[in-house]
């Protein structure tokens, strides 16, 4: 391939290397990330919500399905983890697994219903069903804390291979979260490179053609939906540990909308896009909310401009301009 290519610009060659070693590149960047971000809590926010956007991107960017209900998975992951810790005294690692499993289950149910509809219905049905999850958790006050959110998800220290690490130290916390996010990124990359990843792309590119090839498109979408939900559920569980609380807003429509914005801003269907998008969104929010209480106005305008003029997002546009071909 490289033999046939015309001489490449430095930028193109550099991006080519990054694309070939995408897991290493992402992890390398995320390891150094806290050093360049104003404060560690923000870095951890970007890390966890970047994972959320990554999971969402599997569906939106790689399978071509626009879900407006992913808050349900972030939220049930967070509540699952939090409830296991607070009410059942499960250890932190088990709690993360329980949160992820709960989100996977919720994704299977919502996915099963949403896949039955076609095309344009999908966004509407996922939105409606996620609102249903929101109200359900809202009602279960004894377990979820209802309107006030689930409080007391306090993790002082965690034991890793016999070492006691202080989870209160923001730097330690960041790198513990990164360990989980790193494994998820690696799994995600494997998944995209697998034969199954190829089927997802085929479904996104041309559903009818994929069907004519003999692929069960509905089943493929459902599997993608459930896996996407699992990644988002892990992000939710990590977020519960990170914030020490699960606000009810985690399940709200706006949280679903937030990940759509992140994915589009960063560049849907690109590997780095979700983290770029999460960083852009959260930095924008961080800066604007200091200046004005109406920061959502500017976020909305930026988003509209991207939809109209840069639908490939920041990373996608960079790839178009300088990317390896």
């Amino acid at each position, binding site marked *: 391939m490289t033999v046939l290519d015309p001489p490449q610009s430095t930028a193109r060659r550099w991006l080519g290397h990054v694309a070939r070693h995408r897991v290493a590149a992402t992890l390398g960047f995320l390891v150094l990330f806290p050093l360049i971000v104003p404060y560690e809590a923000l870095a951890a926010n970007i890390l966890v919500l970047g994972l959320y956007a990554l999971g969402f991107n599997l569906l939106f960017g790689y399978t071509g399905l626009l879900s407006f209900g992913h808050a349900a998975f972030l939220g049930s992951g967070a509540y699952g983890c939090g409830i296991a810790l607070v009410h059942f005294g499960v250890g932190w690692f088990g709690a993360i697994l329980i949160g992820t499993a709960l989100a996977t289950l919720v994704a299977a149910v919502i996915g099963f*219903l949403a896949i039955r509809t076609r*095309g344009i219905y999908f*966004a509407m*049905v996922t939105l409606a*069903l996620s609102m249903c999850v929101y109200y359900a958790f809202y009602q279960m006050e004894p377990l979820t804390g209802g309107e006030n959110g689930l409080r007391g998800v306090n993790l002082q220290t965690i034991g890793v291979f016999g070492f006691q690490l202080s989870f209160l130290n923001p730097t330690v916390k960041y790198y513990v979260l990164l360990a989980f996010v790193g494994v998820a990124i690696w799994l995600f990359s494997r998944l995209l490179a697998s034969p199954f990843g190829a089927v997802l792309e085929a479904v996104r590119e041309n559903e009818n053609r994929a069907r004519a090839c003999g692929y069960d498109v509905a089943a493929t979408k459902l599997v993608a939906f459930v896996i996407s939900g699992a990644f988002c559920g892990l992000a939710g569980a990590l977020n519960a540990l990170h914030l020490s609380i699960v606000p009810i807003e985690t399940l709200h429509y706006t949280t679903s909308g937030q990940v759509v914005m992140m994915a589009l801003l960063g560049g849907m269907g690109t590997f780095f896009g979700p983290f770029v998008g999460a960083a852009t969104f959260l930095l924008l929010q961080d800066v604007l909310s200091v200046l004005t209480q109406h920061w*959502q106005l500017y976020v909305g305008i930026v988003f509209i401009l991207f939809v109209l003029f840069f639908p490939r997002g920041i990373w996608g546009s960079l790839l178009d301009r300088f990317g390896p071909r």
Partner: protein
Amino acid sequence: MMAFPPELLAMQLVTGLALGAVYVLLAIGLSLIFGMLTVVNFAHGAFFMVGAYMGVFLYGLTGNFLVSLVVVPLAVGGIGLVVERFLVRPLYGRGIDYPLLLTFGLSYVFIEVVRILFGLNGLPFSPPEMLQGAVDIGIGYFPLYRLFLIAATAVVVLALWLFIERTAFGLVIRAGARDPEIVRVLGIDVSKIWLVVFGIGTGIAGLSGVLAAPLQGVAPEMGVPILAEAFVVTVVGGMGSLVGAVIAGLLVGVVVAMTSLFAPEMAKVSIFALMALVLLVRPRGLMGRAGLMG
């Protein structure tokens, strides 16, 4: 079941119909826009909210609710025209997700603009004096305003039905909902039709905002839950079907009213259960046509 006297059930049924009336109007607008443009208007709830605020503002200014009822649909529809012409239109041909994403972003802008103009908190609003009080409807006293709401919805639905079934423009809309190619073959500028339909759909959303304002007051976020509920109605009724929107809207209203009587803690969740049931049994909706979604 036995614990509730039949009069109470009947009252709750009428309450459900009044609630359903708002859903009917919202779903009709959504459905109309979708049927013609294949655009899911995620800003529909925001148009509804803007209409409600405009209605409250105009009423405060003029003291005449009728002014709100007439001016708001026109004004909100006008905003809809501008949105379609300058924001949505450039996105046709780029796939169904882009108009949806754009209207989603737009709803943020609408909400924040209203917050800037009217403050972060909502405003209380009660029915105009003429429509306050209750009347005896045979089974008991029922709030006059809710009856007005049902009647107003019936008028709008009837007018719209006549417009679509009996006018030349309506004929084009019906043909276009079936197949945009037909309209093009007839030598009609499809983009003009789309523009007008978007204006009508958003205008009706604005009107339903005015009508809903006296029920619970207005707040910048009021469009969010109602958007989800309008989606449920559209899915239950079948996208692109006027009759479906009416039946499903009333059905959803009644389901909400009844569950809030029997199991209040389930009231919010019940309509989603209804939607899930419809998806399982009849994925295209009660009145939806096969093949419309492509």
